[in-house]
């Protein structure tokens, strides 16, 4: 049916957010999803894909990309919540048909394989969006807690202790599987709407437009693009600068401990000078008392130097730190006193080819900083793992 654009235009200009009160059966092309909402949707698809891929199949050193995607999702979420108030009609939460009865009726009609087309979200779709946004919010929050607690990074690094971060990481994983289910349901819904019921939901999310009965259409007389771009810019600047300010604080449970010159000179002449948080005080004292039999070599020192080094190591042993390395490796005593004999070390380095350890830029398994760029600080963040020569696990 031919569209009477003149009518629409005049109507839009004079009434703005108003129902059309035309009483005929004409269908008109109306923008349902404003451009900012569509850009939000597809940006979210991209960011969730990157986060999902790097999270589910990625190696630990992909954490940087995963976290970047996570921050993007966080910014998009805050934008979406604000857009739920400031956006055009169908983007606002108050337009969502969230009444439980409506959703129930919609499911019933779906089971009868008939469903009328909805202008904005259908009742199940509206709940779907809420489930998606809520799950994503849980994911971003638990992700930032996990990043802060386990890696000592991100805006919550200064706040969250390791054990809290570990619990957050468990929740993060559960939420990730939940999102997997919610996204699958969302895609199933789109499939049902687009392919079985032949409602043009997919083209609507691309062009923004739907052909709907003129009697039901709600028009907005102006473009929301400028407002959307402005809101996204403000959201990004506020969250990014706030996040950067928070992230600039030193992580909780970690401090810079300058090693005495003797430690770097003596211990560091044969091997990487391990961060003291990687062994317990007991282990360090035991090691320092038997330097003449040091892993097959005589590493004995004069009494004065021995005391100086032992004092430093004991004062900064694993118990003084709240980092992932201090918990998973440092607090675990091994009979050999070796770091590489701890279960966590073995698990995390399982499957790395011998040649990776033996190549000249690494040298051996006990040269942490062959791959861990931040080994000297004791922080061992996943994203600071750099395999030399592009070698991968």
């Amino acid at each position: 049916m031919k569209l009477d654009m003149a009518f629409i235009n005049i109507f839009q200009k004079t009434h703005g957010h108003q129902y059309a009160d035309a009483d005929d059966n004409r269908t008109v092309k109306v923008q349902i999803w404003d451009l900012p909402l569509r850009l939000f949707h597809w940006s979210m698809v991209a960011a969730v894909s990157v986060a999902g891929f790097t999270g589910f199949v990625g190696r630990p050193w992909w954490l940087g990309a995963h976290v970047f995607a996570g921050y993007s999702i966080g910014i998009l979420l805050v934008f979406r919540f604000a857009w739920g108030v400031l956006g055009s009609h169908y983007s606002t939460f108050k337009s969502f048909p969230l009444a439980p009865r409506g959703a129930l009726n919609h499911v019933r009609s779906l089971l009868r394989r008939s469903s009328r087309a909805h202008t904005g979200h259908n009742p199940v779709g509206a709940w779907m969006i809420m489930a998606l946004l809520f799950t994503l919010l849980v994911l971003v929050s638990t992700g930032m807690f996990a990043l802060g607690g386990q890696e000592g990074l991100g805006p919550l690094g200064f706040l969250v202790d390791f054990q809290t971060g570990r619990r957050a990481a468990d929740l993060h994983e559960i939420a990730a599987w939940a999102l997997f289910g919610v996204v699958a349901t969302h895609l199933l819904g789109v499939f049902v709407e687009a392919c079985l019921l032949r409602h043009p939901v997919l083209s609507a999310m691309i062009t923004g437009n739907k052909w709907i009965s003129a009697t039901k259409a709600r028009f907005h007389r102006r473009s929301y693009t400028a407002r959307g771009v402005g809101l996204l810019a403000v959201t990004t600047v506020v969250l990014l600068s706030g996040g950067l300010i928070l992230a600039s604080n030193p992580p909780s449970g970690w401090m810079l401990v300058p090693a005495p010159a003797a430690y770097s000179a003596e211990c560091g002449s044969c091997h990487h000078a391990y961060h003291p948080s990687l062994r317990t005080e007991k282990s360090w004292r035991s090691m320092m008392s038997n330097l003449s039999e040091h892993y097959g070599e005589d590493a004995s020192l004069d009494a004065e130097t021995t005391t100086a080094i032992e004092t430093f190591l004991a004062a900064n042993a694993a118990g003084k730190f709240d980092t992932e390395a201090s918990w998973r490796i440092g607090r675990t005593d091994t009979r050999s006193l070796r770091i590489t004999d701890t279960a966590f070390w073995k698990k995390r380095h399982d499957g790395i080819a011998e040649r990776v350890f033996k190549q000249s830029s690494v040298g051996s398994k006990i040269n942490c900083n062959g791959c861990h760029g931040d080994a000297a600080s004791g922080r061992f963040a996943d994203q600071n793992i750099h395999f030399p020569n592009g070698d991968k696990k």
Partner: protein
Amino acid sequence: MKPRTIENPRPMLIIMALGLSLLPIDGSASDLRQQIFAGYTQAAKSKTPDFAGFSAKRGQELFLSRPAAGKPDTPSCTSCHSTDPAAKGLTRAGKEIAPMVVSKSPERYTDIKKVEKWFRRNCKGVLGRTCTVMEKGDFLTFMSNR
């Protein structure tokens, strides 16, 4: 000939200190090295009346020998320092060791405490005993002449 070992290093250190005190004190690396040589020479003379100087050749033989009498992982000097003393070595932990020869590592053999520390540790690790003054002098002569 049974290798002479020094059970009590204190008299030797006193002799070395006396030897050092006879030399002009100068900060340059080669002067510091000369002082160490002078100390070992003094000690060797007092130990062996017919001392006829250190030998780079004996030093080389020691460096390249494979006594395998100390710790099992370090049967010879070359286990870590490589057979070419002018090349870089590698510790068992995988850390690079600067070349042993003075021409490549001019900062070497300028601190008597450091020199004695490494002789003490590595002679025990490779030879299973402490080194004699003669062996130390020969070794340093070989490394300085290369």
